[in-house]
């Protein structure tokens, strides 16, 4: 049963539609990411759940109750802001205690819960420190503790890690995932970082221009992108123009000199999408010439010029000899690794 439900939610600013027809069911304890480039409407959607913006159309329900009728101060959601929005004039403990105070939690009880919350995010002993005197990572943890200490029904994270450097971001991702697993709070993360979305979420909502492109597990969205946008946005991908010939027996899918039995359904002009790490060098297949070869430690990156346009190939560095720049190669892949979409014929 859906715990948090967004039903055909839309938001318009004047004539501009920022979010349209957004429907999503979130299960209790689930970790969902809204993923997309800036301006895709993901933060707007989050702000509508939080109550800082009212939806133009549609409904948001929490456990079946209409959330939009409740004032944001009464929704009981925990929010971690991109800027953290810590209260600079209050110490870490005072920041965390604020939400409890607003709920009228008795002082003694409050102190205990604040200590526990700070300990949970690894900040035991930092109670009296003021935010301006903490590092970005520490501020981020205080913000998380402040949001979690009120035992929110849903935790909303608005690009919480984007202000941290790469190494710290990775550490916080792991920690965030562990904390969320332990306490089981339903969580929605807004991010433009596909790695972050993939490593943290149970399901990803890929958004573009205010609309949902795909909802699925990280594997699904990566392996079986529902649209060209999703396949481009989630990692590198090769798009080759091809066609399906239903007159042949059996029908064949042809892309340059590469061909395979045609999948059911499609006909005519198509696009073949294939991840660079799923392409191998073989005896037969798309004929190509290697333009540049870049060594990247655990793998090699090849930029090729194929008969169907530029192609990227990634090969694991397993110690075997790799083709050199300028060498002619054949690109091949297993039919089950590619996704095929109809192409508007030019």
């Amino acid at each position, binding site marked *: 049963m859906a715990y948090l439900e967004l039903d055909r939610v839309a938001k318009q600013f004047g004539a501009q539609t920022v979010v349209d027809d957004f429907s999503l069911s979130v299960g209790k304890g689930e970790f969902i990411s809204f993923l997309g480039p800036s301006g895709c409407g993901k933060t707007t959607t989050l702000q509508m759940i*939080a109550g*800082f913006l009212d939806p133009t159309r549609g409904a948001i329900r929490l456990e079946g109750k209409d959330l939009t009728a409740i004032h*944001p*101060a*009464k*929704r*009981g*959601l*925990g*929010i971690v*802001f*991109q*800027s*953290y*929005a*810590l*209260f*600079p*004039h209050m110490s870490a403990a005072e920041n965390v205690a*604020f*939400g409890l105070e*607003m*709920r009228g939690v008795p002082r003694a009880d409050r102190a205990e819960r604040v200590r526990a919350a700070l300990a949970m995010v690894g900040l035991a002993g930092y109670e009296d420190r*003021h935010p*301006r*005197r903490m590092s970005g990572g520490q501020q981020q943890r205080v913000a998380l503790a*402040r*949001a979690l200490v*009120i035992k929110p029904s849903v935790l909303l994270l608005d690009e919480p890690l984007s202000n941290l450097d790469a190494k710290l971001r990775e550490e916080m991702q792991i920690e965030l995932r562990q904390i969320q697993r332990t306490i089981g709070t339903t969580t929605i993360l807004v991010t433009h970082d596909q790695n972050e979305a993939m490593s943290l979420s149970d399901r990803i909502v890929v958004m573009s221009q205010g609309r949902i492109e795909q909802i699925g597990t990280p594997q699904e969205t990566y392996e079986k992108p529902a649209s060209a946008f999703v396949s481009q946005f989630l990692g590198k991908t090769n798009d080759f123009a091809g066609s399906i010939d239903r007159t042949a027996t059996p029908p064949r899918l042809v892309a340059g000199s590469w061909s395979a039995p045609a999948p059911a359904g499609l006909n005519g002009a198509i696009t073949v999408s294939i991840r660079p790490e799923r392409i191998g060098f073989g005896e037969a297949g798309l004929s190509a010439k290697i333009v540049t070869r870049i060594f990247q430690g655990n793998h090699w990156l090849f930029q090729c010029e194929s008969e169907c346009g530029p192609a990227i190939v990634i090969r694991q560095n397993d110690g075997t000899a790799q083709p050199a720049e300028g060498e002619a190669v054949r690109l091949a892949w297993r039919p089950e690794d590619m996704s095929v979409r109809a192409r508007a014929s030019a």
Partner: protein
Amino acid sequence: MSAVAEERNARAPWALTAPALMLFIGVLLIPLAMTVMLSFHDWGQYKGIEPVFILKNWREIATDPYYAEMFWRTFRIAILTTLLTALLGAPEAYILNRMSGRWKSFFLLVILGPLLISVVARTLGWALLFGGNNGLVNKLLMSLGVIHSPIPFMFTETGMVVALAHVMMPFMVLSVWAALQRLDPQIENAAMSLGAGPITIIRRIIMPQIMPGVLSGAIIVFSLSASAFATPAIIGGRRLKVAATLAYDEFLNTLNWPLGAAVATLLLIALVLIVIGSNALIERRYAEVFR
């Protein structure tokens, strides 16, 4: 920059600042020192200024209650003006900050623009509005039922405070505005998501954070009001003297320059001490939070 270049440039900043430094020593520091010296000179109706070193003027200021009353009036007006600007300017800055882009810059211009318009012209406006017992302000207040009989504004401290508060208001709004710009734009949302209502947000989240801005605005307004000349002179007339207008009279009417110099020196010292003292206090109070 290489060590050689650093060496060669060691004299450059002094060469560049030397003209300005000479100017300031020659026509600012020396005249100020001369004024302090002047305050120790003697003066008489017929003998004029006598370059001697006596404490006569300082003794007169210290003993004659007229001066105590005048300085007390000066600071009372400055304090009331400061309070008025803080009480009205801070909320206005907050309201301005919540407006949407175009309105915000328009009203900011309307409120800060007067800062650059002649003080004489602005005070003249108030003199016109006050204009005796049947001035426009009194008529308006009476028709609104705020007051029953006209309040005398011209030649009173009330009028001076109102006009001064108007003249100084842009400084307060600017100062609070600057403090508001440093606020995290999501801070109110954060407080709200934790369950805080509008009053709590203003009292617990906004006020403590803009307090340094209010205080530094207060210092500016106070020091400018305490040394204001045009507004007290026009609204207060010849009867109600403050430090600046008294010094003016001593210099240009009574011609007792040494006494005027003593009043001015005292005003300068008092203001410098108050400004430096309160700045230090504010900095210490907020050192932990605002660096």
